[in-house]
């Protein structure tokens, strides 16, 4: 009877819960990159003040910190929802992997959030209350806290993409951590962190350069604009180059542990060796995909059909078909049910051990046991394909953009740029920089779309699909909260953008 009560869930709850998580994550990700990026810029600016004692740098630091503060509040506000949504909307998930997944969130709170919240107050209100050294340390520690926070949340996210350091315990009916080091220092997490943080610095860089260009166009605060632009473009160029390198490493990680995601990113249905990388449909870079995935022009990359039907790589490695994985997943679930019953009935040890062996042999495909149609295993191809291209395209564009900005600003090489003066360019040059700000955000959000849409239908890769992770809620409840968050976050975003624009228009107290 209890069982009947518990399983009365409508499918709408799953989709609305996914939509709500996506909505809150997308909004949160509008604010976090700028926080991480501006943290570096304002840190460098205040360091200049600490070194030179020039009041100009102090006011410049205050100006960037003010913009940081407006954005930071929204990041904090949207972030709290995400943590609690794991419980409110994904309660089964919270139990099934809470033993592993909860730890990074707790560490994030203890190590990072308190650092951020303590020192951000000193940064805002401490100019006249603490020494310049303490204030400078507080500014950097605010950024460090935000970055450490990113580390732990990306450890948690990376674990969802590549679950390591855990074992299933049939007695507690959940996965349990067996190696904290494997979870916290997973290669997937390291790549993800490096790629995410460096791409966030690009946002900080372009935001800074865009604001500076607006001042140059208006012939206001020229010194602040030129000096800040050097810092913003410098940070941006380094970040864009690093994001490219770390992106390549992330691509190799995906190829290894999430081949279906890579196939969806490339809309690759029938794979093989010597695969080209599609720029757009019909135009491709020869061997590009094989190099991206394996660092080898002759490397084998499976396509969607290969992954569904099973394949053998040139070096003889065989991957079972989706049907076989589903069958083995069901076998694991049935053996688990039998194991539980045998234990409850006091069966002999040999019988229990037999069930345990079956569970362990098939546990790798446990999540597939919940899959009814193998077509559900294919993530949305169109979204992944285009989101990946936009992300990479925008990243490449920014390498060029920041390099040009630095070349013009420093007039290097002289032969090419000596006739240009960054303060007196035609207005449309500045407009290009300003309009690149929203493009950077689009590229950044596309990165998240690739990461999260590509993981579908899994909440934890190969271990638990979304429909086995959700809470027992009526879809109406989730629909109401979805629209409440949509209205709230959209309104607050509009207020924030308006305040930012007015604050930029007002400018620093120079």
């Amino acid at each position: 009877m209890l069982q009947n009560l518990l399983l009365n869930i409508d499918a709408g709850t799953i989709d609305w819960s996914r939509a709500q998580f996506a909505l809150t994550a997308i909004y949160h990700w509008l604010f976090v990159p700028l926080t991480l990026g501006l943290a570096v810029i304002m840190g460098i600016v205040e360091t200049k003040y600490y070194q030179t004692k020039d009041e100009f740098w102090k006011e410049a630091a205050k100006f960037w910190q003010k913009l940081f503060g407006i954005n930071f509040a929204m990041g904090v506000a949207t972030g709290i929802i995400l943590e609690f949504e794991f419980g409110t909307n994904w309660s089964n998930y919270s139990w099934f992997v809470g033993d592993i997944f909860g730890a990074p969130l707790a560490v994030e709170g203890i190590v990072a959030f308190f650092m951020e919240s303590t020192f951000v107050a000193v940064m805002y209100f401490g100019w006249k209350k603490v020494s310049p050294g303490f204030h400078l340390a507080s500014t950097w520690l605010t950024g460090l806290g935000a970055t450490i926070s990113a580390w732990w949340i990306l450890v948690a996210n990376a674990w969802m993409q590549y679950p390591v350091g855990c074992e299933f315990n049939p007695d507690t009916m959940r996965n349990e951590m067996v190696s904290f080091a494997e979870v916290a220092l997973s290669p997937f997490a390291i790549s993800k962190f490096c790629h995410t943080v460096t791409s966030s610095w690009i946002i900080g860089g372009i935001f800074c350069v865009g604001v500076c260009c607006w001042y140059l166009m208006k012939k206001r605060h020229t010194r602040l604009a030129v000096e800040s632009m050097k810092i913003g473009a410098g940070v941006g160029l380094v970040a864009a180059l690093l994001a490219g390198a770390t992106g390549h490493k992330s691509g190799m990680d995906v190829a290894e542990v999430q081949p279906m995601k890579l196939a969806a990113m490339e809309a690759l249905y029938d794979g093989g060796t010597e695969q080209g990388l599609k720029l757009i449909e019909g135009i491709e870079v020869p061997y590009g995909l094989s190099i991206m995935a394996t660092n080898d022009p002759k490397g084998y990359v499976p396509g969607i059909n290969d992954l569904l039907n099973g394949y053998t790589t040139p070096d003889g490695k065989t991957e079972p078909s989706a049907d076989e994985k589903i069958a083995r997943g069901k076998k694991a679930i049935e053996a688990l049910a039998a194991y539980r019953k045998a234990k409850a009935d006091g069966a002999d040890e040999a019988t229990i051990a037999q069930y345990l062996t079956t569970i362990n042999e098939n546990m790798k495909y446990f999540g597939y046991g919940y899959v009814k149609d193998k077509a559900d295993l294919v993530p949305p191809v169109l979204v992944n394909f285009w989101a990946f291209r936009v992300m990479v395209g925008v990243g490449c564009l920014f390498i060029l953009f920041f390099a040009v900005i630095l070349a013009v600003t420093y007039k290097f090489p002289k032969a090419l740029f000596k006739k240009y003066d960054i303060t007196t360019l035609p207005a449309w040059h500045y407009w290009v920089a300003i309009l690149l700000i929203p493009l950077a955000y689009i590229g950044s959000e596309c990165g998240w779309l690739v990461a999260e849409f590509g993981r579908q239908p899994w909440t934890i890769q190969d271990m638990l699909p979304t429909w086995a992770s959700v809470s027992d809620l009526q879809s109406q409840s989730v629909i109401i909260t979805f629209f409440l968050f949509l209205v709230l976050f959209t309104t607050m975003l509009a207020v924030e953008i308006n305040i930012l624009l007015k604050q930029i228009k007002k400018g620093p107290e120079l």
Partner: protein
Amino acid sequence: MTYDFLQHYWCFIVSLLGAILVFLLFVQGANSVARSLGYTEEGRRLVYNSTGRKWEFTFTTLVTFGGAFFASFPLFYSTSFGGAYWLWMIILFTFVLQAVSYEFQNKIGNFLGPKTFQFFLTLNGIVGPLLLGGAVATFFEGSNFIIAKDNLVDAGAITPIISRWANASHGLDALLNPWVLVLGFAVVFLARVLGILYVMNNVADEDIRSRGSVRLVGAAVPFLLLFVAYLVHVLLKDGFAYNDEGVIYMEPYKYLNNFLEMWYLLVLLLIGVVLVLFGIGKTIFSKGYNGGIWPAGIGTVLTVLALLLSCAWNHTAYYPSTADLQSSLTLANSCSSEFTLRTMFYVSLLVPFVLAYIIYAWRAIDKKKITKEELQGDDHAY
């Protein structure tokens, strides 16, 4: 360290975070009375700027409390948050509103106007403590949920969910229990008491301090009445106990027995109550004394800590189910694995270091009290 010790240790850490969170609700409490405490536009600004330098501690403690609960007792996280959906969503919603309200309210470009965000601060100041207090009350009163872990092996189900709320209200039904409301409102008035004491200490303004003494009486009297009523109710009610086999049963005077059997919690509770009364009383009766927040704040932490531990230690089911008694959560049946608790134990050793730098930074910022003059010259003032 045994598994049993680690379970009790993590219960202590989570309870301590919960107790510190209740103390930090002074931010909400002060915001809920900012209109009358500040009285003028200038006075209200002083109040908001005083709490505005601390709101992130409350917010961070709430998030860390959630994260620590998730890591150490994931079945609670799964059952309570997924089940009492509406209760938690309303709490979170008001905290989201609060998070942006300080930064946005007086900035140029705020097209919603400062009053909108001041309303959000008031809303969070009342609803936040009320529902958090109500959520704490469910540890003693019980909630309507059912757990059946074997559902996970029903691969034929649309969604193999292990826990569900036994009615469609998803947590709001708790508010129909008058004792939940009694503790909820006790926390609302406690937050006000602490908020008034904090502002009186943190703001150097004679008008606010003299108004604070009067408002303090108005908040302290209902708080004490409600708190004493709830404490007596808890001590006299049947509690949710479990035996060595993990079978849960009702035990008369369970919580009273817990305090008598764990005398150190009783001592903690009594010291806490005395400190709260001392902080309130001295502020009301001793003219010129503005340090009441410290004894009252420490007293609050000790009292709440004792109460939370009394509902979890000594073979007590800390999250009882009124729908199915055997679904009730105990430390043993809801905690993380021994490995995870042990790993997190080592992480928790960082807490004293974190507390040390918080205290250092707090003192650095608060050594000069906030004045009207300071706000005029501060370009980041709210």
